[in-house]
């Protein structure tokens, strides 16, 4: 019996887990994990069993749960709602999806990773940075839900000098610090779609929140012939190199902020060697953010810094990529292309490479080149909560941890099969997949006792991240 009650996921015919036997219990998170693994080719059977998910090398999940319980204990629910109002439920099954993705990852990793609780990763940044729910302002403060003439948009002004771009957006001089106020006033007089188009010209993340929220967000599911809102798209571009699957993989982390580094960190927990690569002129901005989060996501990784403005630096980057088994990047496709780094060509040229391309909307989406962050992309997908007064953010940049977790599952599956794959993971697609998996959450009977709404917690921070570039000479010499 194929698992089918949870996530509706599929890919484009690349099946790295072909024939891998997995059994899942009828638990929402285990079913989610089973659907993810089935979409990667695994042979998934259902059985009444404990542990909830059993693969050839590992068995995980010792407690049944529902979306309601998982959302409440994830720490994300506390981050959802207005400051002076109650903590709210989210649409769809984001917490079950996070828990299920971690189940799937643990089964593939074949290691205990017993402390890895997927749902709790949703609240991890808030726990470390002391963030709280603020209704229409994201917990991190970089994104707001703002009314337009015909609905609501999510606008991110994440950088210090975004006020100048607001000026260009609204065609007026905008003083430093006045960006939010002026943008909000302008948006009230324009349609959301037109505002989003104009913001896209300027590279400002701005997206219309679907009016029906989760109910309509996935109405076009199946239009791509896959039968589901897939969280990823795998494309075989080069030959697999099965021999590579047997040695310790080298992961090159070119990504920044949260989703990509989380994916790389999880691969590191599964045993990979992780080398973070940054541009000397433009390091990961998260280094200037919450220090504990940066340390948590990068402790134990080597750090290489290259001057990507110089031919030498770009040549070194290409050498590193040719030595890697996995590349994780989270830039817009054109950013690397402008440096002469073309993911598709590199996967085709280098047998065994897995390229994890994380972006806001996904490489095959018409908005492939639009920027986006975890809060605005989740809102664009309809992954927002609501109360009588309107939409409020669900969790903290929730598309980020959901994407990092899901990308890690497919990346590990590809590595097991020897790579040769471009893995296109749009944060938008991940958020939509979490909304499409409605049945497990919605069909839950109301719990007899309301679940305990837990504060966000973080995994222990194991040490400090390497300073930028401390390993550059050694890593380049060893190649």
């Amino acid at each position, binding site marked *: 019996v194929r698992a089918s009650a949870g996530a509706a996921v599929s890919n484009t015919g690349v099946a790295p887990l072909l024939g891998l036997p997995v059994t899942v219990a009828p638990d929402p998170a285990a079913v989610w994990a089973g659907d993810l693994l089935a979409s990667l080719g695994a042979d998934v059977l259902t059985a009444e069993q404990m542990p909830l998910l059993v693969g050839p090398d590992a068995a995980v999940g010792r407690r049944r749960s529902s979306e309601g319980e998982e959302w409440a204990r994830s720490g994300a629910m506390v981050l959802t709602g207005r400051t002076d109002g109650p903590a709210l439920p989210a649409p769809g099954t984001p917490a079950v999806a996070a828990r299920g993705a971690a189940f799937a990852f643990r089964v593939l990793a074949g290691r205990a990773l017993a402390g890895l609780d997927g749902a709790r990763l949703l609240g991890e940044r808030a726990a470390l940075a002391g963030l709280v729910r603020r209704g229409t302002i*994201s917990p991190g403060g970089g994104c707001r839900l703002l009314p337009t003439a015909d609905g609501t948009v999510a606008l991110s002004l994440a950088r210090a000098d975004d006020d100048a771009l607001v000026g260009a957006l609204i065609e007026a001089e905008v003083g430093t610090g006045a960006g939010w106020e002026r943008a909000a006033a302008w948006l009230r007089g324009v349609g959301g779609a037109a505002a989003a188009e104009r913001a896209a*010209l*300027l590279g400002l993340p701005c997206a219309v929140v679907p009016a029906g929220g989760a109910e309509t967000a996935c109405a076009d599911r199946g239009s791509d012939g896959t039968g589901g809102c897939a969280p990823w798209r795998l494309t075989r571009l080069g030959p697999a190199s099965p021999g590579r699957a047997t040695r310790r993989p080298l992961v090159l982390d070119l990504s920044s902020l949260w989703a990509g580094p989380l994916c790389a960190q999880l691969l590191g927990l599964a045993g990979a060697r992780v080398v973070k690569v940054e541009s000397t002129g433009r390091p990961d901005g998260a280094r200037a953010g919450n220090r504990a989060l940066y340390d948590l996501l990068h402790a134990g990784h080597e750090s290489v810094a290259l001057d990507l403005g110089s031919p030498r630096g770009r040549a070194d980057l290409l050498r590193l990529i040719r030595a890697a088994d996995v590349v994780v990047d989270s830039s817009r496709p054109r950013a690397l292309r402008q440096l002469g780094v073309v993911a598709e060509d590199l996967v085709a040229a280098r047998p065994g490479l897995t390229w994890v391309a994380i972006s806001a909307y996904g490489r095959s989406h018409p908005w492939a080149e639009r920027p986006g962050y975890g809060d605005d992309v989740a809102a664009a997908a309809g992954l927002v909560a609501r109360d009588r007064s309107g939409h409020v953010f669900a969790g903290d940049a929730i598309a980020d941890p959901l994407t990092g977790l899901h990308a890690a599952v497919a990346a590990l599956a590809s590595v097991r099969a020897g790579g040769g794959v471009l893995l296109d993971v749009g944060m938008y697609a991940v958020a939509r997949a979490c909304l499409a998996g409605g049945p497990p959450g919605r069909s839950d009977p109301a719990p007899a006792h309301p679940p305990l709404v837990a504060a966000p917690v973080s995994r222990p921070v194991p040490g400090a991240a390497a300073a930028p570039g401390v390993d550059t000479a050694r890593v380049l010499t060893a190649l």
Partner: protein
Amino acid sequence: VTVALTTGMRLRSQVCDTEVIVVRPPGRELVLTCGGAPLIGIAATAGAGLSLDPALAGGALLGKRYTSADEPSLEVLVTKGGDGTLAEGRNPLVLKEARPLPASD
């Protein structure tokens, strides 16, 4: 034709695909050109008989910001890439450094 450059104004090249938006207007009057011909309003019609000047065909990169060495308060953002060189008159604009990544989202 001289157009006064104002914040948010969208302009296009007459001789290639380049389009820009004015993020920060210059502090004085200046004539922005691309490929040797003045930029015009996004909806305006290109002049007849103009062609890309091979001496000013270095290209304008999508998503990059340019300024003038002589007038650093100017900032234009390329919203559509093209073959022409953005210039003040015949004096090429310079690429501004990429903006730093945000610290969080």
